[in-house]
């Protein structure tokens, strides 16, 4: 069974705080992605990684960074949280064994006050 775990489901942070969102997969997958989801805008790609220590910007990377020190963990970092980063954040990974299907975690709801 494919498992993508986002450890924090609900977070409330203050403006200016540094925020870490963690995503872990236990299937030795190379490709991992971070999206944010907002009503009426669908899912937008923030960053992705195709291997350890590798990262690529997606469509909306401003205000975010990522870290991929180990294959199983892909972290999204908000260096200085702002209210316009209040959103649902979704992590995803590619499962090659099921025909390169992309599986998503349950999501992390972040509120910045």
């Amino acid at each position, binding site marked *: 069974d494919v498992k993508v775990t986002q450890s924090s489901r609900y977070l409330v942070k203050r403006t200016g705080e540094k925020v870490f969102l963690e995503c872990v997969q236990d299937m030795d997958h190379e490709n991992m992605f971070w999206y944010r989801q907002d009503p009426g805008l669908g899912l937008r790609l923030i960053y992705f990684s195709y291997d350890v220590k590798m990262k690529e910007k997606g469509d909306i990377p401003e205000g975010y960074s990522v870290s991929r020190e180990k294959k199983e963990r892909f972290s999204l970092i908000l260096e200085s949280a702002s209210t316009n980063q209040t959103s649902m954040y979704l992590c995803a990974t590619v499962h090659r064994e099921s*025909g390169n299907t992309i599986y998503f975690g349950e999501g992390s709801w972040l509120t910045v006050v």
Partner: protein
Amino acid sequence: AQSVTQPDIHITVSEGASLELRCNYSYGATPYLFWYVQSPGQGLQLLLKYFSGDTLVQGIKGFEAEFKRSQSSFNLRKPSVHWSDAAEYFCAVASGAGTALIFGKGTTLSVSS
């Protein structure tokens, strides 16, 4: 650049009636196409995908989709809708297997009794 358009923001269908959700994509080469469903407060679940071959694709929960290259479309269909199908549906495109998905803005499906 790739893009996806879901023309219908919200659709209401009577239980037992047929359903068609529209999706148009923009991509120069042969796309990889996906439909995901998201129930309230949940992550995304893959309904079906098209990579190549037969243009009529069967998915889970009785859904199917047809790839029409001439119309740049990948519409989702179900012959008889159940109340449990009420959710948000996302169409997505990728340039290759395992690469980042570009999503449409979603269509919310309501089912009336």
